[in-house]
Structures are given as C-alpha cells and as structure tokens.
C-alpha cells in the first residue's frame, strides 16, 4: 500500500467539482431568498475549472490510487461531455426553477454532486469505485427527480426512481460480490488477468455476469429493465429529465463498457448473446411503444430507450470500431436530446404544462426559430442526414457490419424507419396544424443559448464531424 500526493493531481477535476458542491451548500443559507441563482454561476465556475483541468490532462494515461482510478483519454472524452451536459442543464434550469417556485441553491449542488459521481464512474478501475460512483450519481438524482416537492407527479417520479434504482444497485452489488468471491479481486485489470485463458468451469461466473448486466441495464434503461424510465422522465422537472437522459446514460454506458470489455472481455462469448437479445428487444419495444405516446416527455423517454438499444450494438461489437462508435453515439445523442428537452421547456407557461404533443400545434407560426430547432433535433433523433444523428447511426451500423452482425443492422434500420413516424409527427404538428391560441412563448436567455448551441453542434457534427471523430479514435487506440 502506498499513496503518493501526486495522485491527487489526477483526481483534481473530481475534487474541484465536489468542493464547489459543498461550498454551494454552505453559502446557500446566507443568501437572501430570490438570489439563489448566484449559485448557478458557482456551478458554471466549477464545471469550467474542471473542464480546464481535464482538458490539460486529456492525453495522459495513468492509473493512480492503487489501481482504483484510471485517467485515460476514453474517460476524459466522457468527462468533457459530462461537463458540457451539466452546464447546459444548469442553463436550462435557472429560469425554470424560478418559475416553478423551487429556486433553491441545493439544486445546483446536487447537479454538481451527480456530475462528480458520473466522473468517478467513467474513471473507475475497481468495482468499489464503480459502486460508489454509481451511488454518488444516483442519490442526487433521486432528490432532483422529486425537487418539485409540492407536486405529486414529481414525488411519484422520485419514489419510483428511488425504488427501482436502489433495487438495481442491490442486484449489481450482489453480482460484484460474486465476482470478488470467484476471482479474489475487485480490480478490473486483475479480473481481466484472472479471466485470461481460464476455463470457466464455475457457473457462478455466468450468474455474476447476468447480475451485472441487469444492474447496468437498469441504469442505461434497456428493455426489460426500462419500467422506471417513462414515469420518471414525465414526472421529474424537465431540466432534470434532460440531465438524467444524457449524463446518467453516457456515464453508465462508459462504465458498462469498461467493466465488460476491459474486465470481462475474456468471457465475451458468454455475454455477447445476452446483450444481443437485450439490444434487439430494446430497439423493437422502444420504437414501437413510442408510436402511441401523446406526451412528448414520455415519447422522448421511449426514444431514449430505443437509442440505448442502438448504442448497445457498439458494446456488443466490442472492438475498437465498436467502442469508437459508442462514444460518438453518446456525444451526438447528448446534444440532440438536450436540445429536444430545451424546446419542451419553452412550451411550459402559466397554467399549461406544455408537454403534450398537441401543444406543439402551429409552433412554426408562433415561433419560427424554435420550431426549426425542434425540426433539427427530431431529424437528428430519427437519423436523417445531414444531421448528426445520421453520423451516429452510420458508425454504429458500420461497426456491426464489420463484425458480421448484418441481420442486426437490418433490424436496426427497419426500426429507424419506424421511429421516423413518431419523430416526424412532431414536425408535422408544428408545421401543418393551426395554432390553438395566440400565445406568446417566453424565451429565457439560458434556454435559447442551449438551443442555439445544441442545434449548431448537431448540424456541425452532421456536416463536418472529423475533428470529434479523430479525438474519439485516438482515445480508443489508447484504451486497447
């Protein structure tokens, strides 16, 4: 056992985010009511400093803290994505919290703590860290989901998320305990060494693997572990939903990949069929059930389930191209989903929830730019060129074809066509229907900024994706 002070340097971004979160909690009681949004700028500062730190550490590749924590380009790619997602969430929240009468400073602290959990998750190199990161991410999310604590829907979302989230943590933990018993270690690299060339006589390996798949499956919202998703997405405050569907999914995919490719890569033939099955049912059910939704947040929930199914293909393929396509998929998915939820938030106004699809009727007449932004996000979610969603699906399917999973690609493409129906229905409602009433939409600067950035990135990545692709490729080469 040894501990070097220099190790702190590697975890500095996590430390910074956690310290800022604690500072927010300390300052919050001394601020007068109504001035809480000052703390949002604290949040930006934390994320900015952490971004700078990670940016400088970007190309380092080392394992610190006795093999507990790994700093590599793969993790840093996800961290940078998480900072951007968290900052955009805070931007979306500032006006929203005030309007809903829940402008409490703790909100920003919980966003930062959840971000810190995700950062630990993507850098975890030991099952202890995986568990701790997962919990540090989930517990603030339970609170955030119920942040509108005088609204029954929000509390119901929090209760459902809490029960199913901790249920899945329990399953995951039992799987981890079996892995520990079988291999005598919780370190991912040591597990990989243990599995190399070993004949797996003990069926407990398979059981442990299944329990891990169930635990991670809950977090990425794969069918049949998706039951919580639509209810939580609908009930939680919209910015929280956006962060949940982007940050938590990206971080969970990153750790899913690290555990299964890096540690359990030796028994890939055993978990491959299980994941293929999950991916197929996720794509099919996510897209088909989304067809009948009338609430946009529920529709986006099923859409996020379906996208988890597509992203899982990258994990199933599991070679460098598969990992690379998964990273690109998560990057693009983050921006288009944040943008779509941003538009949903603009429709929220006094007395009208604004999250039914019919609320979009005639949006193009009322607000041309917002409608156009939504059109970009919907096209991108459906995977229509020249938006980024097409690039994401293209690389995923290319990886699958290279791995001789052509039938999976055919299925994916067929259900992409199905998904176009419900994405384009929103566009149709916006452009072809007459508006119900002449109301002026509010346009808080934070939300507008998020929409502009998200739309710009979605178009940029769709037309000129190479800089992002190059970095992701480099990160993958380091991982292997």
């Amino acid at each position, binding site marked *: 056992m040894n501990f070097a002070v220099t190790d702190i340097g590697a975890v500095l971004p996590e430390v910074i985010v956690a310290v800022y979160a604690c500072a927010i909690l300390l300052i919050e009681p001394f601020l007068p009511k109504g001035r809480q949004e000052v703390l949002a700028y604290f949040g930006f500062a934390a994320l900015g400093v952490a971004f700078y730190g990670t940016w400088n550490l970007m190309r380092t590749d080392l394992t610190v803290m006795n093999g507990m924590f790994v700093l590599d380009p793969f993790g840093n790619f996800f961290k940078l994505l998480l900072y951007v997602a968290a900052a955009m969430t805070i931007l979306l929240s500032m006006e929203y919290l005030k309007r809903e009468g829940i402008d409490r400073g703790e909100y920003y602290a919980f966003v930062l703590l959840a971000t810190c959990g995700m950062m630990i998750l993507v850098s975890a190199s030991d*099952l*202890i860290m995986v*568990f*701790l990161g997962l*919990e540090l991410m989930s*517990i603030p999310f*339970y*609170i955030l989901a*119920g942040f509108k*604590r*005088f609204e*029954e*829907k929000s*509390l*119901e*979302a*929090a*209760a*459902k998320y*809490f*029960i199913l989230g*901790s*249920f899945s*943590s*329990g*399953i995951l*933990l*039992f799987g*981890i*305990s*079996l892995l*520990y*018993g079988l291999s*005598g*270690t*919780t370190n991912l690299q040591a597990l990989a060494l243990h599995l190399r060339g070993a004949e797996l006589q003990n069926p407990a390996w398979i059981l442990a693997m299944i329990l891990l798949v169930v635990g991670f499956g809950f977090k990425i919202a794969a069918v049949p572990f998706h039951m919580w998703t*639509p*209810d939580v997405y*609908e*009930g939680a405050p919209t910015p929280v939903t956006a962060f949940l569907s982007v940050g938590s999914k990206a971080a969970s995919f990153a750790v899913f990949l690290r555990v299964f490719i890096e540690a359990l890569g030796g028994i890939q033939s055993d978990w491959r069929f299980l994941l293929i099955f999950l991916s197929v049912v996720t794509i099919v059910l996510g897209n088909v*059930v989304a067809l009948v*939704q009338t609430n946009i947040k*529920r529709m986006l929930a099923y859409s996020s389930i379906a996208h988890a199914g597509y992203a899982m293909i990258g994990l199933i393929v599991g070679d460098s191209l598969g990992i690379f396509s998964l990273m690109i998929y998560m990057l693009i998915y983050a921006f288009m989903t944040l943008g779509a939820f941003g538009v949903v938030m603009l429709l929220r106004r006094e007395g009208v929830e604004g999250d039914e699809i019919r609320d979009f009727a005639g949006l193009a007449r009322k607000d041309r730019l917002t409608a156009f932004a939504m059109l970009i996000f919907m096209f991108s979610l459906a995977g229509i060129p020249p938006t980024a969603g097409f690039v994401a699906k293209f690389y995923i399917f290319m990886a699958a074809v290279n791995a001789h999973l052509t039938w999976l690609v055919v299925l994916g493409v067929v259900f992409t066509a199905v998904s176009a129906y419900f994405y384009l229905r929103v566009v149709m409602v916006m452009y072809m229907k007459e508006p119900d009433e002449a109301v002026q939409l509010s346009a808080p600067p934070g939300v507008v900024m998020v929409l502009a950035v998200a739309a710009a990135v979605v178009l940029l990545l769709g037309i000129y994706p190479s800089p992002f692709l190059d970095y992701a490729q480099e990160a993958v080469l380091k991982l292997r």
Partner: protein
Amino acid sequence: MVPLSYYVILSTMVFVIGVIGVLIRRNIIVILLSIELMLNAANINFVAFSHYLQNINGQVFVFFVLTVAAAEVVVGLAIIIALYRGKATVHIENINLMKG
C-alpha cells in the same frame, strides 16, 4: 470451521427473499427493508469470501456498502415522507398518476 458454501447459501437466500419482497410487497417501507436485505446479502458474501480468501478487500468493501446504504435510506425515507404528506398513504397501488 463453517464451510464457505453455508455462507453463500445463506446470502443467496437472503438476497432472494429481498428480491421477492421488492417484487410482491405493496408497502414502500417494506420494499425499502427488502432492498436493505439485498445489500446485506452482498455484505455477507463479501465478509465470507474475504475470510475464505484471506484478502482484506472484501471487508473494506462492506464499510463502503454500509455507508452508501445509510445515505440511500436517508434519501428514500425523505422521499416517502414527502409522498405521505401529499397522499397520506405509503401503498404503491395509490401512487399511480402516471402509467404506461
């Protein structure tokens, strides 16, 4: 000395009881208790394996699990109390505003 398999059978039984409890009980407090059972089943495993393998990592893991479980229960009970204030019930059949 009690053989390892006894501990593993015990922990598996506790785990299965916890899972069944979560799935069939309708009172949120009881569901919370069942989730604690699942976490503690894993703890039994960790301690038993740790002793059997003469490796301290498992016992360290248990400390972390206990701490996390405490934090989780705090948040869970807070959510249940907030829910109870609004509805005066802790039965999940009555928590059904959203379906599908």
